[in-house]
């Protein structure tokens, strides 16, 4: 963008005098905005968490722990002290033995079992190993008559610091993968919408007259189409994948952008500097590119920071209808929708995804504001 050579008074005069480009100044201003910089750091952190988090998280995002369904968040490892004994009893419930005593300590458990008639089958060790809680079970001693024995097993130390979901999957790992998916959807869909919308709106607004009319008519038509059907059709014909969702969402969301940019362009067109450029014989294309679009950027960026959350929410609405991200993948919207259903019995299922989303969107908004202030050409 350093090729903005036209010394239009609104844009560049001051900056050029100082020999700096508009964008360099903007960057400098942005650096001075602490909230925006903090947001930028948060966003980078979240993006990194989304990209690398799922591979470094202690659990795989799709691993099911049937024994830990909807357990609340805790910094202490699962199974917690008071769960070990019931877990052992449950695991051995089908082994047809009586439990004489259980001792817990040192990440290990010792269980004395007895049987009234049948000899104890050493295979029952596997009942314990089958459980997520115990591993490496061995029969320490077996009485000569085979009617009593002692088993020793290692007790697992599983950390679920954000709790687990309805299938017993680690919520933290799921939030990390959902960050990746949601950020991808948000960024790509917004990017698509931005490009189409700005170009379309600026062109329509600037051209005016018949072309404007026709173009806005097309927007009207697209607005009024049944969105749900549109998406159902896309999903049915092109299969179900995340890339398709970007296209679907972006293809819908550019409409707002186009309208807003057009509205701005309508006023800009009447401004002196545009009329001056026109009378100087600058080509329409260049006027749109150099004067109109840069001057709408402030509003566009604010709107963009509003649009990413909208896209993320829209995506969750789609997922809610079953047209979105597929299991075992997930997105923030899906997690929040699941959490909302469980808000009264497992509030943490709502809290953590919602908190993540709130922080993410706060950061996006503050960054947007910072960018707006930084880019504002009139603020000298």
């Amino acid at each position: 963008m350093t090729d903005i050579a036209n010394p239009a008074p609104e844009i560049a005069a001051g900056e050029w005098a100082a020999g700096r480009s508009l964008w360099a100044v903007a960057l400098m201003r942005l650096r001075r905005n602490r909230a925006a910089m903090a947001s930028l750091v948060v966003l980078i952190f979240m993006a990194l968490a989304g990209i690398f988090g799922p591979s470094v998280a202690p659990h795989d995002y799709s691993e099911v722990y049937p024994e830990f369904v909807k357990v609340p968040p805790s910094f202490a490892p699962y199974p917690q002290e008071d769960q070990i004994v019931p877990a052992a009893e449950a695991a051995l419930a089908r082994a047809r033995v009586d439990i004489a005593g259980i001792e817990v300590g040192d990440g290990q458990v010792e269980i004395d079992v007895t049987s009234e008639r049948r000899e104890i089958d050493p295979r029952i060790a596997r009942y314990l190993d089958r459980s997520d809680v115990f591993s490496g079970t061995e029969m320490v001693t077996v009485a000569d008559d085979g009617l009593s024995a002692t088993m020793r097993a290692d007790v697992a130390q599983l950390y679920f610091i954000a709790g687990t979901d309805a299938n017993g999957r680690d919520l933290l790992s799921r939030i990390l993968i959902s960050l990746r998916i949601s950020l991808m959807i948000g960024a790509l869909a917004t990017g698509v919408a931005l490009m189409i919308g700005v170009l379309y709106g600026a062109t329509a607004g600037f051209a005016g007259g018949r072309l404007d009319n026709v173009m806005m008519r097309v927007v009207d038509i697209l607005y009024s189409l049944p969105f749900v059907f549109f998406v159902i059709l896309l999903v049915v014909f092109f299969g179900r994948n995340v890339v398709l969702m970007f296209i679907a969402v972006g293809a819908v969301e550019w409409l707002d952008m186009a309208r807003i940019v057009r509205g701005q362009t309508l006023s800009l067109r009447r401004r002196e500097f545009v009329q001056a450029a026109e009378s100087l014989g600058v080509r329409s294309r260049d006027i749109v590119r150099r004067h109109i679009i840069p001057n709408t950027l402030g509003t566009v960026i604010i709107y963009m920071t509003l649009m990413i959350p909208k896209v993320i929410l829209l995506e969750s609405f789609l997922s809610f209808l079953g047209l979105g991200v597929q299991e075992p993948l997930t997105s923030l919207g899906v997690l929040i929708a699941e959490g909302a259903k469980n808000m009264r019995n497992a509030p943490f299922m709502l809290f953590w995804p919602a908190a993540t989303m709130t922080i993410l969107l706060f950061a996006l908004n503050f960054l947007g504001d910072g960018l707006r202030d930084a880019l504002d050409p009139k603020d000298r």
Partner: protein
Amino acid sequence: MLSYALRRLFGAIPTIFIIITAAFFMMRIAPGGPFDQERTLEATVMENLNATFGLDLPLWQQYGMYLGNLFRGDMGPSFIYRDMRVQEILGEGLPVSVQLGLTALILALVVGAALGTLAALRQNSSTDYTVIAVATFGITVPNFVVAPVLSLVFAVMLNWLPAQGWGEARQMVLPVIALALPQVAIIARLVRGAMIEALRSDHVRTARAYGLPARMVVLKHALRAAILPAVSYLGPAAAALLTGSIVVEQVFNLPGIGRYFVQGALNRDYTLVMGTVVIVAVFVVVFNLIVDLLYALLDPRVRYD
């Protein structure tokens, strides 16, 4: 301006016609039909139903019949609500949605503009930050979380307001808040941004330089310009708001028409979906027109002649 408005409305007729046609055929390409449900129907029964609703006719003939009926003001029988015609269903639900949406819209506009102006006037103060924070929060929390939480707190725990239903003013409070909240947030942000810009613009500076009282400058000159982006945003938003919200209607059990968009689509209630499409199309056309006219009114540089 009047002739411009009439021209626009008149010109919208082909738009609506294209929408109807596109929606009609798109919908029919989707797999599944109105009588495919968990309980599969007997083959004979299915044939009878298809014959009753004319689904056994060629598609173009069904299309012709639909247009013919629509022209006579009949939107056809609903495939799901079998005792009713689509115009009756929408006729019952639309007033509810409009009443709800309009209230929310006005509330959102007033509160949003006030908050946005307040924040802009005290840019970078703690007031500003609080407003931004609250506004941002309003956008970040999805409707399907806000609505049940409101209901839980004010209906179940405090027992101040009803949890569901329609008919009394009291029953409107929670749904209106739930509907308006995200809009307040968006409008406040838009107004704040534009207001900051407007306060720095030449004519506001000039007005100030002339010594006009600050309050008057803000209200008369700056707000007028600052409201523009919000107005631009409100066109489509109002159309969406007045035609109902699926989440809010579901959570508060309201008889509006928002539910029919998704429900109708999922049930393949072809005529009902067509009906909602027609209504949305009309609303969008009208609100876009209103926005453009408002633009001309608020921004002296835009003229339609």
